[in-house]
């Protein structure tokens, strides 16, 4: 975990407001939200369903447009781009992991992973395949490249999605409830994998979740409450304590057994 965040921030969200109109009624989802975080950070966005977490992620990825305010990613003002440029920006700089995996059923696992790489300008296919193969191996599915997604379990599909989100070396990974569709054990496995791979690649991860298990691992925690974004330092502190405890116990366990045990597998 980096002690001193580099400056300037990778993502700067300034005074973002977003409303939805449904059946003639206006609903305020994000109310003058500000948020900045730095390259390499793991930022967690907490909040119950419908609180606006996904909306914020959609605004950052440029999938949706804010009513007012601005978003800068690596000094590019995403909110000032037109739809096409936002798409091109997303293609190059952002990797997304969805709750429902969203793999393309008509492409093989390997083709799914290589797709974002191939979409980059001036890439050749064999390099894309090589890269995809490497990432698949990194998520433990090096031997399943030729399968179609519907042949894989939920956990395996999410591993493929993680490989796909990372393959083109994006600046920022957005994960929207990545474990929401998985059972408890698989969830832990996937969270670890996501964290390890993003950390190993030095990438920034913004994860929207209502799962509390990620708290000890987060660098910063935010919460959306009544359309307002609040930095949850209290929970961060609790997380730090918990993490210290876990690390101590891990060190202790490590002395007993040589195998590494995931911090999340601890009680």
């Amino acid at each position, binding site marked *: 975990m980096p002690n001193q965040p580099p400056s300037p921030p990778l993502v700067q969200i300034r005074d973002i407001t977003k409303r939805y109109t449904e059946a003639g009624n206006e609903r305020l989802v994000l109310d003058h939200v500000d948020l900045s975080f730095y390259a390499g950070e793991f930022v967690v966005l907490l909040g119950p369903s419908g609180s606006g977490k996904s909306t914020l992620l959609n605004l950052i*990825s440029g999938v949706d447009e804010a009513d007012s305010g601005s978003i800068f990613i690596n000094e590019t003002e995403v909110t000032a781009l037109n739809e096409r440029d936002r*798409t091109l920006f997303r293609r*190059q700089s952002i990797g997304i992991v*969805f709750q429902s995996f*969203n793999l*393309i059923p008509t*492409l093989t696992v390997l083709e799914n992973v290589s*797709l974002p790489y*191939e979409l980059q300008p001036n890439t050749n296919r064999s390099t894309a395949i090589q890269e995809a193969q490497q990432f698949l191996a990194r998520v433990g599915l090096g031997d399943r490249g030729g399968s179609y997604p519907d042949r894989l379990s939920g956990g395996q599909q999410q591993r493929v999605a993680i490989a796909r989100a990372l393959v083109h070396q994006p600046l920022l990974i957005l994960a929207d409830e990545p474990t929401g569709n998985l059972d408890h054990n698989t969830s832990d496995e996937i969270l670890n994998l996501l964290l390890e791979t993003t950390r190993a690649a030095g990438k920034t991860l913004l994860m929207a979740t209502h799962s509390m298990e990620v708290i000890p691992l987060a660098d910063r925690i935010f919460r959306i409450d009544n359309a307002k974004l609040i930095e949850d330092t209290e929970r961060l502190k609790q997380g730090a304590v918990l993490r210290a405890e876990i690390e101590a116990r891990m060190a202790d366990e490590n002395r007993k057994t040589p195998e590494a045990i995931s911090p999340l597998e601890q009680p």
Partner: protein
Amino acid sequence: MSPTLLRLMWRHIQRRPTQTLLFLIGVMIGVAMMVSIDIANNSARTAFELSTESIVGKATHEISGSSTGFDQSVYTQIRTDIGWRQAAPIVTDFVLAEELDEQPLRLFGIDPFAEAPFRNYVTASGDIDTGASTENADLIALARFLVEPNTVLMGQELAQRYDLSPGDTLTLQYGDERHTVTVIGLLSTEDELTARALQSLLIADISTAQELLEMEGSLTRIDLILDTDNDADRSAQQQIEAILPPGVTLNTAAARRNSVGEMTEAFELNLTALSLLALVVGMFLVYNTVTFSVVQRRPILGIMRSLGVTRRQVFAMIWAEAALLSAIGAALGLGLGIILARFTVDAVTQTVNESFFTVSVRQISVTPWILAKGMVVGVGSALLAAFLPAYEATYTPPTSANRRSDIEQRMLKLVPYVTAFGVAAALLGSLLLTSQNLVINLSGVFSVVIGMALITILATIIMTQIIRPVTSRVGGVVGRMAPRSILRNLSRTSIAITALMLAVSVIVGVTAMVGSFRITVENWLADTLRADIFISQPNNTGSLVSVPVSPDVISEVEAVDGIERVTYVRSVTVQSPEYDQPVLINAVMSDISEGRRTVIAGSDDYETMIQRVLNGEAVLMTEVFANNRDLEWEDGLTLTLLTNEGPRDFPVLGVYQDFSSTQGSIMMGLATYRRYWDDEMISNLAVYVEEGADIDAVVAGVQEQLVGRGLLVRSNRELRRSALEVFDRTFAITSALNLLATIVAFIGILSALMALQIERRREIGVMRANGLTRRQLWKLTLWETGIMGTIAGIVAMPVGLVLSIILIYIINLRSFGWSLTLSLRVEFFLQAFAVAIIAALLAGIYPAWQAGRIQPVEAIRAE
């Protein structure tokens, strides 16, 4: 496009064979219909050109008179007095050859010595097979051809087909006479065009032709080669013109070709419009399948968008897919079109022969241009049809969420604009209908129809609201849900309803038009055909109208028991200096309608006018004649005709309704005709039977009396029936059109429902999970389709009515010059309404069955 996107496209095609097939069928049907009608038109035209143009050969000008010909001394004068050698005399008409299945063949009488500059059938480059092995066989054959009467030459291919060889005889029928001729040689040529022309040609020496065609001392025309840029030639032309007797004119060869082209122009244009309709139908199928495939793929498209695939790339992918499939479909359509053409050629040829002129189509004529046009129009229209769904695909939000409500919101916002556009299109169309140009009129019809189609969306919203209370009361919970579901899914349902509405309105419009036409013709036949028995040449239609009946027949018929009186008509074409096309005269001895014809315009009542026509030198013209030549009747109108005494003005007393000729005709007193044209032959006889006599017995008596003359003797009833048979045959293609429209409507509803079902999979699963039984689900789907069918059926009634009014009062009038009386019958509407409901209900069965198979568990898990 990246290879992965291409692969994605290809996988989708592979995984959805039924959809791919539907797409291919859509393009294929459209292209095939267009190509086959194009080929049929082109084949008939080419056949006609071959039979005239290749016979015209290198002639630049021709001298011609009335259909009875002109004195052959004109030719002698041109060759000897003026000394113009580039002239060839021709005597020609159609004859029927018994040994060749009684098909019409052109008997072409030539002077072999004058032919060389014009045609090469009988000269150096054409080979003559005489069946003999002598070295000079060609020359010997030529000598026999000149010297021996009743000898003919024919094309080798034609002879082979009927297993004929030199020395065999043919029985030729012309008028009521039969003649035996000997084939003395077979012509073969390397030139393909000439070879094809030879397939419907018999060549005879001019004197043989004169004898066979009862034209002793006369010529049909004289071909000339004149270079009008050259002074000597121009002076020769003036000299020739100066010696031409009255009623005989010198024209360019091109002028005649053009006048023939004009005759069938409207007919061909209407066929082309019909083929374009088939194309629109094909486009609709393409639109449906592409929409369906976009709907199916929306989740994938959403993922792709979130991975950074741009809108343009999504569009390109869907469009490339449409381009690939439409190219395959169009190629298949070309093949199918060529196969279909063999049938359409027959239909078109029959109509052309019955209505315009004689062609004998031996070969379908496929040009690269027709194929290229079919390909380009096929792919182009498929791409056009795929445009909207491809565009819709680009608006797939880049997440997995299938935001159906977004599309519906957008649709609802569009309704006022679409409706306004529809009203504007309908108004523009109405404006275009006021033009005198048929192409603009037909565009007007399309515009009106499209306009009304666009208004249907608003009509759907309004009518669903009206229907809702009724269905709620009758159908309970399901009856309440069905109209709501139609409104909630307006983007899909309105298109299906519109398609069905269009199809049904076409059925209403066309049925009402054909029905009104038939009723008008039936009434006209009843009014016009008052005699009991009619006698004519068997093929007395089209250009064969000039084949005469000997006047001897009159006294023979009068001798039969039970006959009160006989009246007769001479039908003949003559030239008019005012028009390119020849004028058909019906010279009548008395009024066969007995005063019942309908007068469109005129100086007096019909009785008075017909008396003046029979007694004096005035004429009446048919409505078609006037309309085809843009004549507005007014007092003092005259028509100039080239008589044997020179041009003469005939006062036109009025215009009457007549459906016997597509070119229109002039009614003249027989005495007047004979005075000016010196022609004693007759064409048709009308016989009145004594009161109380048994008509069938008298018909049998007349047949017995005329046996061996080859004339057709028909009772009034038979003639009317055969006239209506011709009518029905001409409009047979419209039943095919109605069927096509119904199929399209069915597929339209089916694919719209299938698309909806994919989108509502979860909704249906949740409803099932909440206790909606399979039976209720069936009911719901059938209620939905039933309501859709009802709305389409109701809206189609006024639209169909408008369409039939346009077809009757504008298109028919402008195309063929016939004014019809709109006769509406309740069954036209009931039948079409039934088609709407039944097509909609049938289309609902498969989706209802599919919906029943959705497992609530799966649908909810996906949620």
